[in-house]
């Protein structure tokens, strides 16, 4: 049996018919064609699939799409400004070489976007703690940490 759901994704209401077992990650990727959200483990450990659900980071691979009917979801595709300019977090990752293969990056970007909203000037420890739910196999995290601090700076400058 399929369910009719409406998700407000990146500010646009999107409708989908999904079976109850449809993962939010699969719904975003395959039903709505938003392939920027990646799936690295499908058991909630790697954090690649992190999206913002009503502003808070969640694992979309551990979320059934039907359970978030009516919710607001932000994916990596929705982080840039309306005019297409990359967000401060995105720009900081580019500037600090905070990504290599880019597969884990959308999850980090969503996590960090929420982190800096809650704590606009995190300490080094708070940054490390804040991204400690996301795996990256390429960067060794050093430049990701640097990028988070840089993003905080950019956000402060542009506030």
């Amino acid at each position, binding site marked *: 049996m399929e369910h009719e759901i409406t998700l407000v994704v990146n500010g646009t209401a999107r409708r989908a018919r999904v079976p109850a077992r449809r993962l939010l990650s699969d719904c975003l990727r395959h039903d709505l064609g938003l392939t920027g959200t990646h799936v690295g483990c*499908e058991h909630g450990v*790697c954090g690649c699939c992190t999206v913002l659900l009503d502003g808070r980071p969640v694992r979309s691979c551990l979320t059934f799409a039907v359970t978030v009917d009516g919710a607001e979801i932000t994916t990596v595709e929705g982080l840039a400004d309306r005019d297409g300019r990359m967000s401060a977090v*995105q720009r900081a990752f580019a500037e600090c*070489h905070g990504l*290599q293969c880019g597969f884990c990056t959308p999850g980090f970007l969503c996590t960090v976007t929420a982190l800096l909203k809650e704590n606009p000037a995190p300490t080094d420890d708070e940054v490390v703690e804040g991204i400690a739910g*996301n795996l*990256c196999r390429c960067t*060794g995290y050093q430049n990701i940490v640097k990028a988070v601090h840089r993003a905080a700076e950019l956000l402060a400058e542009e506030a």
Partner: protein
Amino acid sequence: MTTKLFGAPVQRREDPRLLTGQGRYLDDLGRDALAAAFVRSPHAHARVRDIDVSGALDVEGLVAIYTWEDLPERVGRALPLLIPHPALTHGRTAYPLARDVVRHVGEPVVMVVAADRYAAEDACALIEVDYEPLKPVVGIEEAVQGAQLVHEDVPGNVGAHLVQEVAAADGRGAREAIETSPHTLAFRLDIERSASMPLEGRGVYARWDGRDLRVYSSTQTSTSVRMAVAAALGLPLPQVEVIAPDVGGGFGVKIVHPWPEEVLVPWAAMTLGREVKWTEDRREHFVSSAHERGQVQYVRVGFDDDGRVLGLDVTILHDHGAYTPYGIIVPIVTSTQLLGPYKPGAYRVEFTAVYTNTVQVTPYRGAGRPQGVFCMERTMDKIARYLGKDRTEVRAANFIRPDEFPYDQGMTFQDGRPLIYDSGNYPEMLRMIKELIGWDTFERRPGLGIGIGCYVEGTGVGPYEGGHVQITSDGRVHVSTGLTSQGQGHETAFAQIAATELGVPIERVSVVTGDTRRFGYAVGTFASRAAVVSGNAIALACRKVREKALRIAADALEADPGDLDIADGIVHVVGAPSAAVPLSTVAVLANPLRYAFDEETAKATQFATAAAPDRPPVAEGEEPGLEGRDYYSPIRSTFAAGMHAAIVETDPDTAEIKVLRYAVVHDCGRLINPMIVEGQIHGGVAQGIGGALYERMVYDQHGQLVNASFMDFLMPYATEIPRVETGHLETPSPLNPLGIKGAGEAGVIPVSAVIASAVEDAEGIEINRMPISPSELFELRMG
């Protein structure tokens, strides 16, 4: 003046798309394709008695179910043994789908194709396979005993056995040299399995249009996948194209090909006349791709009072899992790269590679080097401890001196060529790393230790790579090379090379990698070879194009080509900047036209040019277009090197090991982009720390991989990785035009050796086994 982009920390050209969700990874393609899923063996060793698919036939959305018996003869053949070697006397590879016997948990037995992955997995769950379990062989020692066999026709489970020996200057062998040495030591070392574990698993997507086959694969070698797929499916090569889209990490595992799925998915697409896609899930990646590292080493060493090694005798037992598709490259690399920056008096190395009922072993970043370096560096530390000398002093006593390059180690390397180091400066590197970590001022106390590790890495192996460069009439530069990218920033580094060579703004340069439609000849991305081999090929191709551009511009400007230079995409007479012609116009002039499609191309049509009417529009020996192709085929490998040092703290109660500082001095020859090189080092070190402290493949006695998830296989998060301090030394390679070596694997290679050295220093307990967990350290303390 041309802006020199070579050597600058240019921001990556691939980032904007990857940061905005516009990357194109394998599973992002083929939204309407059918989905494949596999029934995989739950047994480590079993005979397949019967497969009953009847229960799955009613699954809604089911399209097809295939077992080995359903495959045509050519498709069902055993997969190729990619790198044969005379010492690999009993090489064995798997069938795309199990034929009679399964030899590790995860081996594919049945392929299901359905409307979507959910339906395909539903069908898989309803297929009943009747197995007759056989006794599995798990672990190196059980394999060596040979009581049970992984392959009935491989006696003693021995796939390969190789002895290499380099005699001392006086002609004596290592064993003899050790016997007569003033001091000798003998010990055993153990290294456990880990794996590449890219965050994107493998994946294949295939389209068949009735004549041509297009395959997308998350691979490190699209050209070779193409040849393998064409051969397996009996298709002429020109009718097959293979594309590596954005690839979410490789680290070695994706150099193996063709995977069963790379044969089966295209075959299913052709058979069904539908697009078919398979995306690996994480458990599949753990149990059906490849692992690496697992070795046992027995070491005997003889040395003098200064710690100089007079003879070294290493016997390696290497676990290559159930199959050997990649040959014995890993133990060969261990055997040869073990020597590092040192010159032992005499060296003997022997390895026996054995089969076990576990996932196959193929290169993972470092590819056998971390094990070899662990062996040599443990040896150096043990000599220092025995003699009561500083560990760096013993290393210095054994270094190859800067004036001894090129230095011939007297062995055969993994490329089949002599192991001759091209350049390096190890004493200077040691000075730098000691200064960076503060070796001489370090204050030792219980629970705080300092460690060091040195390595040499043969990089940039052949046989070759190529580059194609085309300047179009809009002034844009299109560069392509056949090897693939998995996050190394090739689009940026290669654009830097092209922009520098051609004198054009980097914004006008675009780079395509891993697409056989654009470049058909290549080897692949492994062994830190992309920058060296493709980088130089692209530089050479650019030089051809530059020469042609100057020739054509010289005609147009009525100048001598020798008086011309290119800057900012404009060819001009040196010293007379107004006598100039942009490359866009040169590109137009390079291609005589009959038809115009805009103002620029109109200049090249037959009534617009002042071409000499008595000569052909395209001169003899010339080709139309401002483009060029060239190849770089290295005579042998380049040899990068590095030294790492760390300070660790061990908890007196919990035995937890914390890395307080980590320092790296690295020499990869000339740097193309220092930002990217640093990033490669950071990532390598993080993988090394994972391998030293956290990651291991835990097989139980039944051959079940009991930690096959990210919940149980402990890859480090940001909380586990220290800040890496780096220093660069540049000894350019004399072997290639750009003087570069390679950097991709460097970071990971000595980390286990460094951490063992530091923990040993902190604890005063000999560390002979890696990785080391808190509970293992605790047990060592208890004696």
